[in-house]
């Protein structure tokens, strides 16, 4: 991939950009660049998707029941094991 200096400039702000933590002016600057730069647009899209995927993957994960039971027992909180 060819990196122009404006692509490199964008790189440092990418995290803040996908988190929506940049000022209006900086956001507008980045969006102007993205409109003309397919490569950076792909990087932004795949970066966003990467973060979303990790969040989605853990949202389905639960603690196994036997792990919960052993935890309460180890802590002498047997009476409070959730049912």
């Amino acid at each position: 991939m060819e990196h122009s200096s404006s692509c490199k400039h964008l790189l440092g702000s990418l995290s803040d950009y996908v988190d929506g933590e940049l000022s209006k002016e900086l956001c507008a600057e980045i969006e102007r660049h993205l409109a003309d730069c397919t490569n950076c647009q792909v990087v932004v899209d795949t970066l966003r998707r990467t973060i979303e995927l990790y969040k989605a993957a853990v949202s389905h994960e639960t603690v196994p029941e036997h792990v919960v039971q052993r935890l309460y027992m180890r802590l002498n909180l047997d009476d409070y094991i959730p049912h």
Partner: protein
Amino acid sequence: MVDRLARRELVTPARLKAKDPEAMAGLVELYSANIYRLALKMLNNEQDAEDVLQETFIKAFRSVDKFEERSSLSTWLYRIAMNEVLMLLRKHKQEVISVDEEQASEEGAPEPVEIVDWCCLPEKELLDSEGRDHLNKAIERLSPALRAVFVLRDIQDLSVRDTAETLNISEAAVKTRLLRARMQLREDLSRYYGKRIA
């Protein structure tokens, strides 16, 4: 049945310091899933994650007298858990691992190499069992310092500030490491999913 909100009110530092079992059970109920997930993502091993889960609460209850209410209960717990995780990583790898490493390479993020748009793949396909497996492997390839920041901020949804407090590093360091971690994972996932759509 005590609901979650009532439970939260029950779990106070004062009650925990008094060893009130209801408050202790409440703390476990509120945070055990988060602690387990943190450990599992950091260590990618169920047995190790369970050990960390148990040790975290044992140490928390043992040291609750020293809990200062400057930080929240959750940050305090996460910090204990993360220390347990790092201890295990050190034991396994027999090398010095700390979240203070990487000072030298903290400048900027590596430039993107893989430019493939795989966003079009449906989530069902991205997160099939092979895909999930790859997500876990990609996290494992991050250095512990980067992994810790990514797990706390992006998986556990902590704020930048709470992540910094948990790891005892500056907010600026959290931001730099987060960018590096995210970019490294993006590369890794792009290589993998890029092959799948090719």
